[in-house]
């Protein structure tokens, strides 16, 4: 099964995988070879790619998961506005961001800050 994880700015991860686990708007999804075609909106959260004896951890900030098949091979495309592999995450930086954003949210309701906070939390949780 071929997996592509892309953002408008770059290709994050491309390769063969056994299973993909993502968080859709209606719940967690696990995609295996031969899955029916699917187009799902994702929420901010972890994306796990299981390979033989190895697991790739990453986080996506929403976007779509698209499963298609051609000539018997399944293909999973993950299109996210932004994404990061676990190895690319700077935990200290994200912790500082969380502190900043929480301070901003104390006295007022800021939708943008909430989204940013969710992104930062997803990154820190991935490494926890």
């Amino acid at each position, binding site marked *: 099964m071929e997996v592509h994880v892309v953002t408008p700015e770059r290709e994050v991860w491309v390769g063969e995988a056994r299973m993909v686990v993502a968080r859709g708007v209606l719940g967690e999804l696990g995609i295996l070879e031969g899955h029916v075609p699917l187009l799902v909106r994702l929420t901010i959260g972890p994306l796990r790619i299981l390979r033989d004896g190895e697991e790739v951890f990453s986080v996506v900030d929403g976007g*779509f998961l698209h499963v298609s098949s051609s000539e018997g091979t399944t293909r999973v495309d993950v299109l996210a506005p932004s994404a990061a592999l676990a190895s690319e995450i700077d935990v200290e930086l994200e912790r500082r961001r969380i502190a900043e954003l929480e301070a901003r949210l104390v006295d007022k309701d800021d939708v943008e800050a909430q989204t940013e906070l969710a992104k930062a939390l997803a990154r820190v949780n991935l490494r926890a």
Partner: protein
Amino acid sequence: MGAKLRVVRRRIRSVQSTMKITRAMELIAASRILKAQQRVEAARPYAELLTRAMEDVARQTGALVHPLLEERAEPARVGVLVITSDRGLAGSYNANVLRLAEDLMDSIRARGCEPVVYTTGKKGMSYFRFRGVPLAASWSGFSEVPPYRAAVEIGRRLIADFAEGRIDEQHVVYTDFRSAFTQRATSKRFLPISPTEVRDVRPRPHPEYLFEPGPNEILDELLPQYVITKVYAALLESAASENAARRRAMKAATDNAEELVKVLTRQANRARQDEITMEIMDIVGGAEALASASEG
């Protein structure tokens, strides 16, 4: 040292310091072309996969129906986004884009519509301001290295203006980067999204196809994303072109400065030689005067 020689030497020094600046700008522009090209390449996979997803929706639903795909029966106001640079010193880069924008606006007027101008880059902004053309919106400060979030902001504004009926079409005038030697000012219609881009797909519904949420909600996100991706691509192509134009302009300036230094050096040498000749003549004249005085 004579006055003439001093003036020429001063000019040589001034030309040489200008040359240092133009050469530095040439090198910076050259490295930015490469970076912009790499970013154009890096943005391509996403655009391709997004198109594939939209084609899949088209296949499942038979035909895509969405406000962003609707041709308006009688367009009245037509948006034109003109992508220019923040700084000058880029040869005819901005002039080419602005000329094409003017042509497009003329043809929009000829259709009986009113053009509505949006700009990115300081050059485009001041061009239209100077001519008293009102701007619906303008963005600047990123023309050489456009960030993705600028494309998001611009794209959302254009989509909102289109969706809320402030404009009935949206065109974009940008510079297509063909190669380091060829860049061409180009205009394209971004909204409504034209049928040939995504809708020409034979419907082939798969009975088990799953959409979460429904196909319409998914289109509500895919199509704006598609427009934003196209705006981003246009910004990146323009940035690569701007830097290529600047590199060429700065190379020409450096070459001219080199030529000028050669000419001036020759003039300085001539002036110095004239001074020496003059001094020798003075000495010879003086010596001769002394000799004839002592003889007499």
